[in-house]
């Protein structure tokens, strides 16, 4: 069994093994689940160190025959993009489980099992190189998330959970038809019926209505996941109502699946349509950046503020991805990781406050600096990372994205840059209201500072926030070759199908 299969199925195997542990030992269950998730992280580390950053092809590839008559194979592989996302997933899952140590008392067994099953689903999405396998993992992680929100969530959890499932399913329903259409068109054109992604990506599709419709079907499913404006309305509900661990995983990993999908499928499979719809995606991304920031500014609930800030940050990511130049795309992928770390940390810390005071309203806090100095210091660090202070991870990603964006469309890039200012507005205002000033409520005076467990949860994230901010080369180095190869593939396919001006010239010509 290859290392990718081991990483992929260890959480699921652990979940199945946990079934035998009796329900009345919640600590044991949490501990066992934590052990499984931590073990998954440990065995995923060699992937980083043994990954060759100069090679653009997929590495650690595994292939097994599954359903040959339907053209489906068990095909796993890792490139620079999925490497970082897999590591993000394996890092955040044990941290999320550890953060839920006291928070989840009721039905802890089901919670841990659901989280581990979810982890396998997420890893499967990032590792699959077969469209059928990808779709199986994509759909299969809906239900665990639905349970996490619906069973262990807040007051309006059922509404949020059902909304999340229906919204995502509607998007992926159309993606299924597009997958089938792609399968049959490829088969009719080349005689080979397969769901193999690299093989499908090598085929040059005729530009036209068919490609555009397939792109739109895939793009809808991913746009809902990202979430790209205007398909974002499920996000605030889901994030706010989910338990802390659920929010961390949702914001940290699940949202990245949408952006990953654009990179892995939309760009290489439908290059002409991607270029044609690029300006639209660009505009929606910029709109999302500004809109998300403005709505965050007026929020009174901490979690909702962070949720809308996610819309804004992922707008930056989408902006970077659709610049189709090296800086923008590397910045986009890096920002995916950065967002996972920063927003994940934000949700973790909001969860810690909530555990102490059982409120998330900004007005209920104030003056926490004197009461919980360690918490406040880390909260400052994480907030600054989120708004993109140079020296921390957010800046690296945003800078690269904006450099890339300026090469494509100056006006939209200027508007996007204003998003950084708005991010500072809501982030600093929130921080000032919560941490600085006088202690407005007596209950806040008795708040306990970070426990050892909470230090252990936050330190890895903080470490990466600083590391990526100061010295991002180890991470961007893994990406460069993959992004270059992807861009080259898109350019070549687009120019083969439509021999005209080069890709970048067509883009700057305007929408």
């Amino acid at each position, binding site marked *: 069994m290859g290392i990718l299969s081991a990483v992929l199925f260890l959480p699921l195997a652990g979940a199945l093994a946990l079934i035998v542990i009796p329900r009345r030992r919640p600590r044991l269950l949490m501990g066992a689940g934590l052990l499984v998730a931590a073990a998954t992280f440990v065995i995923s580390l060699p992937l980083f160190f043994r990954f060759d950053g100069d090679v653009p092809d997929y590495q650690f590839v595994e292939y097994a025959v599954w359903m040959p*008559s339907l053209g489906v194979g068990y095909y796993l592989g890792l490139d620079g993009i999925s490497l970082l996302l897999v590591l993000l997933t394996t890092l955040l899952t044990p941290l999320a489980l550890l953060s839920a140590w006291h928070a989840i008392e009721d039905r802890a067994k089901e919670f841990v099992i659901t989280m581990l099953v979810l982890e396998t689903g997420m890893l499967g999405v990032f590792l699959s190189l077969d469209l*059928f396998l990808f779709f199986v*993992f994509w759909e299969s992680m809906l239900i665990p998330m639905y349970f996490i929100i619906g069973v262990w969530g807040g007051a309006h959890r059922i509404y949020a959970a059902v909304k999340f499932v229906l919204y995502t399913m509607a998007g992926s329903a*159309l993606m299924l*038809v597009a997958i089938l*259409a792609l399968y049959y068109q490829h088969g009719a054109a080349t005689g080979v019926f397969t769901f193999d992604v690299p093989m499908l990506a090598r085929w040059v599709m005729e530009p036209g209505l068919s490609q555009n419709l397939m792109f739109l079907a895939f793009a809808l499913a991913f746009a809902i996941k990202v979430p790209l404006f205007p398909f974002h309305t499920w996000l605030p509900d889901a994030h706010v109502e989910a338990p802390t661990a659920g929010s961390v995983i949702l914001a940290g990993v699940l949202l990245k699946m949408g952006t990953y999908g654009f990179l892995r499928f939309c760009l290489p499979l439908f290059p002409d349509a991607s270029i044609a719809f690029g300006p639209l995606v660009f505009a929606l991304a910029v709109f999302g950046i500004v809109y998300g920031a403005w709505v965050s500014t007026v929020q009174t609930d901490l979690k909702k503020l962070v949720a809308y800030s996610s819309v804004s940050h992922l707008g930056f990511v989408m902006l970077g991805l659709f610049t189709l130049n090296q800086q923008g795309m590397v910045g986009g992928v890096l920002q995916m990781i950065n967002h996972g770390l920063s927003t994940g940390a934000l949700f973790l810390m909001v969860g810690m406050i909530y555990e102490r005071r059982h409120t998330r309203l900004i007005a209920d806090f104030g003056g926490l600096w004197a009461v919980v100095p360690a918490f406040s210091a880390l909260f400052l660090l994480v907030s600054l990372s989120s708004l993109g202070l140079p020296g921390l991870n957010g800046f690296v990603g945003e800078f690269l994205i904006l450099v890339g964006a300026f090469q494509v469309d100056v006006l939209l890039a200027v508007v996007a840059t204003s998003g950084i200012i708005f991010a500072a507005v809501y982030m600093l205002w929130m921080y000032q209201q919560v941490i600085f000033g006088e202690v407005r409520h007596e209950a806040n005076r008795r708040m306990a500072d970070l426990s050892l467990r909470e230090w252990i949860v936050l330190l890895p994230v903080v470490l990466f926030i600083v590391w990526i901010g100061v010295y991002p080369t180890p991470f961007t180095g893994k990406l460069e070759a993959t992004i270059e190869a992807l861009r080259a593939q898109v350019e070549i396919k687009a120019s083969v199908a439509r021999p005209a001006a080069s890709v970048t010239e067509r883009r700057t010509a305007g929408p």
Partner: protein
Amino acid sequence: MIPAPEIALGALLPVLVVLGTAALVLVLDLLPPRDGKQHLGGVALLGIVGALLASLWQWGTEARAFRDMVVLDGYALFFNIIIGYAAALAVLLSMDYLRRNGVESGEYYALVLFSMAGMMLLASAGDLIVVFLAIELMSLPLYVLAGLFKTRLASGEASMKYFLLGAFASSFLLYGIALVYGATGSTSFDRIAAALPAGRALDALFLVGLALLLVGFGFKISSVPFHSWAPDVYQGAPTSVTAFIATGSKAAAFAAMMRLLFVALRSAQPDWSALLWGVAAVTMTVGNVVAIAQSNFKRMLAYSSIAHVGYMLVGVVAGGAPGAGSVLFYLLAYTFTTAGTFGVIALCARAGEEAVDVGDYAGLARRHPLLAATLALFLLSLVGIPPLAGFVGKFYLFGAAVRSGYVWLAVVGVLNSAVAAYYYLRVIVYMYMREPDGSSAPTVYAPSFAGGLALAVSLAGIVLLGLMPAPFVDLAQSAVAPLLR
């Protein structure tokens, strides 16, 4: 001395086994004990197993009897397996269920067997007269079985409605058979196919006959607009009978309908596929949309069955080996899932009465986590979540549609699947995320060995079909090969 004619009894062997067992059950019913008829259920099961063995024994051969009126080919054998499994589940579920509801009777098992014989005959029918005969043999016992709860008004209403509407539909079918006979000069599928020239326009008499035939079949498979009997019958009939109607009679009707369409009416494919395109789209949509409004679980499952018929009609429209094969695979997956779902319903009660309201399942996961998880898995298979059977079935069905060029029909299908998630998930919400109101929490009768076996096999079936579907897909493809020769 008149020489006795050659009768190829081999083609009829499974049906004869079932009929013989039914007669045996009727006779044994006369003997004591007066109450406690579960041993007759055991006899019935033996008969079903015998019929399945007889079917498997015939595998690979093609037997025809009565001048091609009865055809036992791979296609019929595949359906025999589905029908046998549906009947076995109905019997296994009912052994406890009937006793608990006070309607234990030997005739129940005999009627199930008679109906099963009709279903198997329907799958092997090679002639329109045999189709009619088999539909009547299948339906009349079901009309009686629907009214088994003699003291409950809903059950009597279900039986009455089923009978009246069914008789009406059978008369449409008969009229259609007469018109087709008039147009082509024969009722045998092969001879009708020979009488219809490919490419030449079909005359009005034939087209009207075709339409009437589709009305008759449309009723049996509960497609729109002939579906109105289904919700009342599913809701009112005893749950084990509902399981049998939902799985067995639907499978048999699809078997005969597809044989008719693909063999006898092959040259009219452009006509009937255009018609069925509309029927499929409307059936899916009506089934799903109306199911959202239902609060009675059995009624909701009736409308969801109607929606699933719509999905299967997409496969019929798609045609060819993938299209027809996908319908067979979906029927197999659907039988496991539906029988399992109704099996769970048969076990649940609230305040002494059968738990049929969705709200009755609130908080089930707390007290009975294993049963709730089983029901959740069945419902998720109906939604079409991987890696369960329902997902593979839908993938295969919509794949066949896209392959044949019916992309928009596939789009309607997947959007309907997404909509359907709402009402299936609602039950899961009640089970896992809500607490029971008042003092009455749902009680669950421990399933007997028989019931538990039925649920376990159904569960194993949907997981197996979901994870390793390739052998079953190939089996379905080879089963439809006789149709497409």
